[in-house]
């Protein structure tokens, strides 16, 4: 099993942390992982993206021209990455702020109303975990137990009281993800 995933959105949406939690969860499952961020001035307020690869075997390139799955969280990223999903692959997006929804018919498209649901849950910060939940429902590459362990490893101890809230957000995401095409 190898999953080549890109998560792309605005800086501040928690794109890099989503990737980090998935990568740590992968380690908890004894898998090989690579987390490769876009870095530089564009991170501060502009677009941010991270490539996450989780695999049973040694990982080759962190640099990819096509992906098994793309998680897309703003229009700029949709414009850039919709075409880079492998045929038969998966595109997951949050419709908030998306003016031109994806149009490809050779991939599986899902949407997660993450922004709206996070506000309903009373904590906009769990937005990214709702999206992670939607992703894990569609692509269960790691178990929820290991996501919990991944959260423990990737969050500083002072934030461990927030783990139950994050797990709840993941479960909510699993419930609300819906197939579009």
């Amino acid at each position, binding site marked *: 099993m190898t999953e080549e995933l890109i998560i792309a959105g605005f800086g501040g949406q928690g794109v890099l942390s989503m990737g980090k939690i998935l990568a740590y969860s992968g380690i908890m499952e004894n898998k090989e992982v*690579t987390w490769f961020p876009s870095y530089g001035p564009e991170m501060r307020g502009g677009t941010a993206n991270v490539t996450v690869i989780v695999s049973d075997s040694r990982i080759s*390139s962190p640099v990819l*021209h096509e992906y098994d799955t793309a998680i897309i969280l703003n229009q700029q990223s949709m414009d850039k990455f919709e075409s880079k999903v492998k045929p038969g692959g998966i595109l997951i997006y949050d419709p908030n702020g998306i003016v031109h929804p994806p149009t490809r018919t050779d991939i599986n498209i899902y949407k997660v109303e993450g922004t709206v649901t996070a506000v309903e849950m009373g904590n906009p910060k769990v937005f990214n975990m709702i999206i992670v939940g939607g992703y894990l429902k569609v692509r269960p590459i790691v178990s929820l137990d290991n996501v919990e362990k991944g959260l423990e490893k990737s969050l500083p101890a002072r934030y461990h009281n927030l783990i139950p809230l994050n797990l709840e957000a993941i479960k909510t995401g699993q419930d609300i993800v819906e197939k579009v095409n």
Partner: protein
Amino acid sequence: MGELRLMKGNEVLAEAAIRCGCDGYFGYPITPQSEVMETLMELQPWETTGMVVLQAESEVASINMVYGAAATGKKVMTSSSSPGVSLMMEGISYIAGAELPCLVVNVQRGGPGLGTIQPSQADYNQAVKGGGHGDYRLITLAPASVQEMHDFVDLAFNLAFKYRNPAMILTDGALGQMMEKVELADFKPRWTREEIQEISGSWATTGKTASRERNVVTSLEMDPGKMEQNNLRFQEKFKAIQENEVRYETFMCEDAEYVLVAFGTSSRICQKAIELGRAKGIKVGLLRPITLWPFPSEVIASMTCRVKGFLSVEMSAGQMVDDVKLAVFNSGCTVPVEYFGRMGGILPSPNEVIEALESKLINR
């Protein structure tokens, strides 16, 4: 099994330095390697192992602090990125001339000049052909994973002390910023005063005792006859390094008709390119130099008579390709050697590598 963690390449350089018993780090911040010193400052090893961590006023100051501390037989290092490493070149030449061990890490970014902050391999020639003045060589290691960023810190120090020569880890912003699973080594204690005496007492300025001659550390020699003798001794040392320390890895080369030559990040990209190429029926393999100097010329020469061509894949304008050509030239067989690369902070993608292989070698 050691502790498993998800870490950035830059963070792991710091962690590995502490764990291998490094005595001192002197540096100046620059993107994309600032996490090295940030991590050291956060871990505060001066409270635990006693390792000194100091932010100097410039790269010129850092390398000269390394020079001074290395003269005492201590295990010391610095790190920077391309423009900062250029500033260190004078100091590196002095350290090589004074025959001192140390570690310099270059987390390369796009150049020339201030360039970009994105990954590059355009300092290859600077690392392996000189950079500073005079006839010296840098033992140059090129990690291709976060695990190797960890492992090569200890290896670089071992080689530096074995040959009393500066060693460099030549990596790039991608490996510095990337996180991967890494197994951390156990802590090795720093050398005691007695151990330093035993290991380096014959040359290091450890405090003169009544029973021995003064140890003088200098790169200056006013007598050209003696300076030539020094150089001849250096060359003997470099020859021994070339004979004993070549390291490389091959990937799917057994039946390969075409061989990609790439190091560091570009070697990872090439592994993916090989998967794509093999799926199309192209018999392609990878030779990954781990030591860039000494360069694995002999293994290239040994392949030359049974392959149809080499493609040097770089994040530079065609630097390592010269060393591949030289290796092929010395082999006695003639096969084409081509180059493909991207520059300025742009990474080649796996499909571009295969397209280049097809257009430059297979369908030439």
